[in-house]
């Protein structure tokens, strides 16, 4: 018994310290007032994506604050119901059901990954709630997995890749190598890039795919070096992306390359981690923080006041989702999800990214895509926008598989 006691005390002590430093608090629930716009946010609160989840919520919070400061939307107060998930679709779905059936949410935002959206889209009509996707980029979400109640605010992978392909001539390098994640997005991005590169008269000397969650890129980088490529198109996300960049650095791969073009690989939250070695890298950019329009300047100012730092694409795209939703509510003059959904069909609105249109055929928001270069700026790194590509160029025709 004494031995058990030691073990248990040790376990409890460990747990107590842990609980003390980390009990995350959340506010949820509300008394049902039909004159509020209730938006459930279901970001990942654990796992590698938690940081993005937090930032997504910040975008929504700023949007809600501005709206409520201005007397609400269509006279109604905006209320955020902040939930959390571990990014497992099953969990997200359960939380979404809870938010809608228990807390009375009519709208859902800040859901992160494409699989979560796929699972959610399948059940949105049954739930009777609208979902605004500002993070999951998979094309299938506006194709076979589309839903009348699911709105795709963020650019799809196709739009991103078409934006890059459109600008390939501006990038130095003749012999390209493709390093992509062995994942649907990796393969489709590689295929499209290859076609665009060849159309632009460049050589694609090699393509290789690394499984998701690869930690050691040594053998891939060795092959890249041996291929004699002078430019690399890299599709690696999250920890994989960091590992690739870091190891490429150790192998002195950059010496051989004129261009490293990342696809969703480097982004603002990773700048500090990756450090100066990524200066000069190119990447697709979803949102231009310096965009010269009044709505954007207002957003950047408000967001910086709220959070002490400027927004990047994650909070911005979520803010854009809020703008879209609010425009829909105003157009419909109602908070009823079905009526808002109808009002959003082919609706155009002024936003932080200029005028955007919600295409009725597949619920995709038509908006610009950008190509950026990582440059050093006042002690840190930032994206310099090199060019932007119009939705006419980037956005594929609506997928006939979308039957909503």
């Amino acid at each position, binding site marked *: *018994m004494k031995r*058990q006691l030691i*073990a*248990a005390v040790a*376990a*409890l002590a*460990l*747990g107590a310290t*842990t*609980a003390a430093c*980390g*009990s*995350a*608090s*959340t506010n949820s629930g509300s008394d049902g007032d039909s004159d509020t716009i209730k938006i459930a946010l279901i970001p990942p*609160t*654990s*796992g590698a994506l*938690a940081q993005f989840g937090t930032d997504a919520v910040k975008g929504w919070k700023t949007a809600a604050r501005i709206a409520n400061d201005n007397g609400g939307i269509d006279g109604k107060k905006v209320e955020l119901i902040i*939930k*959390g998930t*571990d990014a*497992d*679709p*099953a*969990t997200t*779905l*359960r939380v979404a*059901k*809870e938010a809608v*059936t*228990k807390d009375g949410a009519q709208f859902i935002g800040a859901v992160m990954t*494409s*699989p979560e959206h*796929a*699972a959610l889209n*399948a*059940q949105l009509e*049954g739930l009777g709630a609208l979902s605004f996707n500002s993070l999951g980029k*998979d094309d*299938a979400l506006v194709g*076979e*997995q589309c839903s009348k109640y699911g709105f795709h605010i963020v650019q799809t992978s196709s739009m991103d890749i078409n934006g890059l392909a459109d600008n390939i001539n501006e990038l130095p390098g003749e012999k390209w190598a493709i390093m992509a994640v*062995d*994942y*649907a997005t990796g*393969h489709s991005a590689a295929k499209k890039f290859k076609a665009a590169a060849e159309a632009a008269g460049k050589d694609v000397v090699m393509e290789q*795919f690394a499984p*998701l969650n690869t930690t050691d890129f040594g053998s891939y980088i060795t092959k890249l070096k041996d291929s004699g490529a002078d430019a690399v198109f890299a599709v690696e996300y999250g920890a994989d992306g960091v590992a690739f960049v870091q190891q490429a650095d150790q192998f002195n791969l950059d010496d051989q390359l004129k261009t490293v073009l990342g696809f969703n690989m480097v982004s603002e939250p990773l700048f500090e981690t990756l450090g100066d070695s990524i200066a000069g890298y190119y990447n697709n950019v979803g949102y231009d923080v310096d965009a010269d329009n009044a709505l954007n300047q207002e957003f950047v100012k408000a967001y910086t006041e709220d959070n002490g730092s400027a927004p990047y694409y994650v909070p911005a795209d979520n803010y854009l989702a809020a703008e879209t939703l609010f425009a829909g509510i105003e157009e419909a003059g109602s908070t009823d999800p079905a009526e808002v959904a109808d009002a959003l069909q082919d609706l155009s609105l002024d936003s932080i990214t200029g005028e955007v249109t919600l295409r009725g055929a597949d619920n995709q928001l038509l908006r610009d895509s950008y190509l950026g270069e990582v440059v050093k700026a006042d002690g840190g790194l930032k994206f310099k926008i090199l060019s932007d590509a119009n939705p006419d160029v980037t956005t594929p025709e609506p997928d006939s598989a979308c039957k909503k």
Partner: protein
Amino acid sequence: MTTTAPADDITGDMVEPATVKRGRPGRMLIGLGVGIAVLLVGLAVPYVVTDTYRMSLLLDATILSMLALGIGFMARHLGMISLGHGAFFGTAAYAVGVAITNWGWSPLNAVIFAILLGSALALVMGVLVVRASGFGFLMLTLALSQALYQLSVQISAREWTGAYDGKLITYEPDMTFLGLTQADLINPGLFWPFAWSALVVSGIVLWVVGRSKFGTTLEGIRENEERMRFSGYNTFLPRLIAFVLSGSVASLGGALFAMNAGYISPQILGFTQAGDSLIAALIGGFGIILGPVIGTFLFVYAQANFNFGGNLHLLTGLLLIVVLVFMPGGITGTLQKVYRRIRGKDRQVSDERGRSGRDIASDRADASELRAENEQ
């Protein structure tokens, strides 16, 4: 391998001593009666729990309980702790998805196919793993199910499993499952009767098997595998049969899971899912057949209510340690002990120190835990 008895051989017992009295038809009939009553009463649940959210939690727990039931059966009757039953659950779920979406099968046929496929996988895997005991078995089941996970997320498996994107199940128009449309299946209240009946019937079947002569053979193997062989018993086949049976129950759970969720995420085959189910079963306790079920219901409840900030695994980790250290036998085992003590019928003198002469892995301190006993 090893032996029982010297009084100083204090070993743990996650498995509550199963001193069941077998072969009394009276008790068996009472048990069956109770089972049928539970089945009927349970069918009324959707009329009592009208809140969709609560209902969907209950349904989730019921379906996951079948996975825990399978794990619990192996632990209870053979002392074999499996981290691989998620493979059968997941395979059956994917099988439903593929049969309905890719092949356009009717949902009922898909479910039958899924159970058969899951059981067939259990047979193949069982041939490879049931000879091992203790950690050997644990690690082999873990490794093989992880291999399956890696296969399922391969890009070349995308057509079948959807790889990392998961598998969305889409029905041919007009397809129904025993009269329910796909929209009905997602409705927890309407799907409840299937899941509940499946759980109760599986539970009764496993209970009856556990009390049969076959159950005695399993207990003999758990207690002393070597002596069973030296007593003329084939010890491989019963272990294989038990493994396949428990795998079939997990497969049934997986098939129902897919029918209800309409979407299968790759995590279903992952390490975390396997670990969670085992932990839930352990916390519930292996001593009685209900233990893993109770554990799963608690786990699902905790997952729904205490998961904010991602601290669920912190809590389950703590609870797991507390249960293993203080409450061998899990929650149900501890309740039984308390009950017996109150009744004053605690025959176990050595209870205080854990029951002597028993070992969950039945080969404590055996350096060759991985040794596969050759049947020759």
